[in-house]
């Protein structure tokens, strides 16, 4: 059963079309990456999922229910980490964690202690004196301490240092191992690449690509760096993009169908070094975010 099932979702703010027909499906037990630039519609989609905003059109099912009408029942089964959090300045971090997690039911106090220790968090300070990273930890701990079916995380690591990011990634892997579903919105592509089973790329309120990491990589160009004995010439072939030649060195990206021709030319120049890799998520991402006809 799909945990999240969205078809043709639209939402406008006045004249601005935030979502122009999103299709998305998240299965039970997977970590799903939702990537896009700021303003692409990630947070709007999440706010609709949480029943905070009403959709304009399309259908949306969350854990089998309607996110707006059934929000109280559904929220017992999900946790949310916002991209921006201003916890109540007069409360301590520990009090906010307890308040938010107790609204959801009875969290395990051992789990709370463990998370506070792992994130190296001081729960006794008043929220107004926390830095951005520490405020983010409040939201993260409050969400991770509850055992629910679905975790909706909106850029959860903004403001965290690299060490804490890796603690966060461990926690997400543990959730997956325990059979939970994670919906991770992010623009930190390395993080999505490391964690996610499947990914959707959103641009201007539309999903421009989605699939597993491997599927996404298959359909796209390979990145080639080569060094030859002779100066490299004659690589201006169809299917080769972003060619950069510097004497005996060349780098370019190439369609899978044009790879063979490119290799032939490189062997004619007596290649001594060849580095050929599938694109990283970042290359894919940039590909979709560059205007059509732009070579990379």
């Amino acid at each position, binding site marked *: 059963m799909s945990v999240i099932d969205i078809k043709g979702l639209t939402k406008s703010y006045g004249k601005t079309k935030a979502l122009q027909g999103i299709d998305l499906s998240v299965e039970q037990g997977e970590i799903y990456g939702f990537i896009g630039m700021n303003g692409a519609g990630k947070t709007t989609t999440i*706010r609709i999922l949480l029943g905070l905003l009403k959709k304009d059109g399309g259908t949306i099912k969350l854990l089998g229910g309607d996110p707006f009408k059934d929000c109280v029942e559904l929220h017992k089964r999900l946790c949310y980490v916002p991209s921006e959090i201003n916890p109540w300045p007069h409360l301590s971090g520990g009090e906010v964690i307890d308040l938010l997690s107790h609204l959801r039911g009875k969290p395990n106090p051992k789990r709370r202690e463990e998370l506070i220790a792992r994130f190296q968090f001081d729960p006794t300070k008043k929220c107004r004196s926390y830095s951005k990273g520490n405020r983010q930890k409040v939201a993260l701990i409050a969400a991770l301490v509850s055992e629910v079916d679905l975790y909706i995380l909106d850029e959860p690591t903004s403001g965290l240092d690299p060490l804490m990011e890796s603690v966060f990634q461990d926690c997400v892997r543990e959730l997956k191992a325990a059979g939970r579903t994670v919906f991770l919105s992010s623009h930190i592509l390395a993080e999505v690449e490391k964690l996610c089973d499947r990914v959707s790329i959103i641009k201007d309120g539309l999903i421009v690509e989605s699939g597993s990491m491997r599927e996404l990589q298959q359909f796209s160009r390979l990145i080639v760096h080569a060094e030859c004995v002779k100066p490299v010439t004659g690589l201006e072939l169809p299917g080769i993009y972003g060619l950069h030649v510097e004497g005996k060195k060349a780098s370019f990206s190439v369609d899978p169908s044009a790879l063979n021709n490119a290799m032939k030319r490189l062997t004619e120049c007596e290649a001594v070094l060849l580095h050929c890799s599938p694109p990283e998520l970042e290359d894919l991402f940039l590909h979709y975010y560059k205007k059509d006809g732009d070579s990379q």
Partner: protein
Amino acid sequence: MTRNGNAAYGSLLKNYIRGNKVITLLIIFLPLFLAYSAAVSNHALLHTPAELANYIAENQGNALLGMIGANTIEAATVWRIRLSVAVIMAVLNIILVIDTTRKDEDLGKLELLRAGAVGPNAPLTATMIKVYGANLLGGVAMMLGFMAAGFPLTGSFAAGMATGLCCCAFAAVAMLAAQVASNARIARGLSFGVVAMLLFLQIVANATGNENLLMWTPFGWCAYARPYAGENWLLFLFAVPAIALTTIAAYAFLGRRDIGSGYLQERKGSAVARANFRSPFALAWSQQRGMLFIWAAAYALMGLVIGSLMPAIDKMFERTTFLPELSVLVGGPGKAFLTILSYILTQVVAAYALMAILRMREEESLLRTELVLSAPVLRVNYMMSHLCIAYVGSAVAIALFGVCSGDFITSVSRIPAVWILASVAVLLYGIAPRMAAPVGWGLFGLFLLLEFLWEMRFVGNSIFKLSPFAWVYPGAAASIATSTVMIFIAAVLTGLGLLGFKHRNVIAG
């Protein structure tokens, strides 16, 4: 390297002058409008010496408004409007100053500015120049308003400048509060606390007839300057240094603190929440109880002071004809004074109710509402938590004043008027949240203005009755029927507001 604490204040000033246009224009032009209209209306109403003498005899020694300085129409006019203008201007100044100083700092705008080539004092300096400038222009405008109605220059100048300086004093208080408090809300609370205290001091000065005491509260400055009644320029020797000292104190506090911090030292919190801290109501209560306790304590205290002064006040009014009609209605001039005071305090409590309700809007724009509603919490329960505190809290403050002053029944009968204003804010929050604060406060101001215009006989009874306060105006004893209707209206508006909130988008920012 040169160190210029005010670097770039000029460019900031250009920006600030354009900001908060409505309030700025009100500060400059409202005094002109009020002065001119009051003067013209008095010319029309009191055109025979007998009418004038009668009017002055009836009103002389009013404990709220103080003495009429001379037996002339000019003195009577300035007497009538000086306190209203000062109170309206004080509120506008506080909102304006704290919006451009502490609120910008809370929102991180100031940090952005100070990261540029902007001196640490520049934002405060730019604010000061704008606000003091606007207030002094307002003073000049008031002078012109009186002169346009044919009043002499010297007295008009004294009235305008004393009022302008009074406004500057409240701007200075707000600038100081913005530096002492650790956020805009506390700064506003502190400033309004000072307003209440100084207003109270003004009443004590008038009630005891101690003219020297008037100098110590800006609300008394216009009376102390004696416009059209042998001007007392001594005021300026006192007022200008007082404003300067307060301003210097603001700069001193600013120079000694870090950006974003205040002087109310932060205590460490508890690592775990109390066992019963797990509902939207518990959260709302923890946020709102501080403000509620302060209001309740202030009202109880004022009630006690007035209650204990009642015998003296009764005696003072014994042989006067203070508000003859009202005195007959409520049983004596002392009682009449108490009725008016408790009526005014009821109106002030409406400001508390609005603040308590608009707190939800603040929560929403700071994305905290979203955080609570992402948990299994019914929207109606969330909203009801804040509403209960606002409705019950405002009623408690009024009731406490009533109990302590001995005017319980009349005080309590006015509560529904406060609830009506509050329920309009609730309705707005439910269906048009971005309008809740401007329209809510605007309506509050409009009701006060309607009352003022009604008292000046610019508008008739039927128009004044549009204001809920008209139905509980001193002397118009609220009947059970009126109260029931008012409670019913408030309940309907509140219900519609809840329904609206249940079905609307939660708005970020």
